[in-house]
């Protein structure tokens, strides 16, 4: 029973942290903080929430390290390639836009 309480407690803690991070993100926007502050706050909260969901809700924490790192690293590098390819068009569009 203690084991079950501990297991479910882990999810409750993760849930509370996710809600807190969501409130921080929405709060930063609602009070209209300067962009120099609100954007890093949103990016940090987003990263934190993604880590929590990946490790706790997707159980990556308890998977074999090879699988967890394989997923994280392959996604990261593929995203860089994707981002670079879109950036080529993005920069072209940026220069075409009348300012």
């Amino acid at each position, binding site marked *: 029973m203690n084991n079950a309480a501990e297991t479910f407690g882990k*999810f409750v803690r993760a849930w509370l942290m996710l809600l807190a991070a969501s409130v921080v993100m929405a709060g930063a926007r609602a009070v209209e903080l300067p962009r120099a502050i609100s954007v890093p706050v949103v990016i940090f909260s987003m990263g934190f929430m993604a880590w929590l969901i990946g490790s706790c*809700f997707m159980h990556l924490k308890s998977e074999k390290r090879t699988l967890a790192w394989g997923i994280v690293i392959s996604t990261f590098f593929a*995203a860089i390639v994707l981002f670079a390819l879109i950036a080529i068009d993005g920069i072209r569009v940026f220069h075409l836009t009348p300012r």
Partner: protein
Amino acid sequence: MTDSAKTAAPVSWEGGVSPLAVSWQKLMLWFFIVGDALLFAGFLAAYGFNRLASPQWPNPLEVFHLPMLGLMTFLLVSSGATMAAAVEAARMNNWKLVVRLILVTLLCGAAFLGMQAYEWVEVIHRGATLHGNPWGVQAFGAYFFVITGFHGTHVLSGVLLLAIAAFRSSRGWSKASGIELAGLYWAFVDLVWVFVFPLFYLV
């Protein structure tokens, strides 16, 4: 594969008889998730570039209702927690609890979809289409409908998947591994929203 063949399989990759010590179903779902994540990353990156390139962009707070979006986020985050708990309950062989937790997850997902439908109807009534909108920047409507629509389709598929999982679990037909796969997919839906919500609605 026979039992003797399984025993004889090489284990030098540390994965035993299956790659990376996971079932093929789970590995395939991870491949799907990584591919799908890149698709969303592509959408959001294109949206980011377009937004930077536009001299003006509508203020999302003037277009959307932040309290409702907060509630939608609350529902999806909560459903992620209940689904993760359902996976644990399945591992503990507590199938009554599994069914209850999946039903809570399903209700949260359905409520999220209802709110998204309401938001779409309202935005459409205000004149937004894929090709234009009253807020000036043409691409705004297109990105809104494509990104949220694509995510909503994932939520809808997840809700259907959960309905099947709940039915099968109530009949005693499910296995813990099946619930784990459903949970993995649902957590991915949750994960995507964590990026869509701030990048599209807040920043």
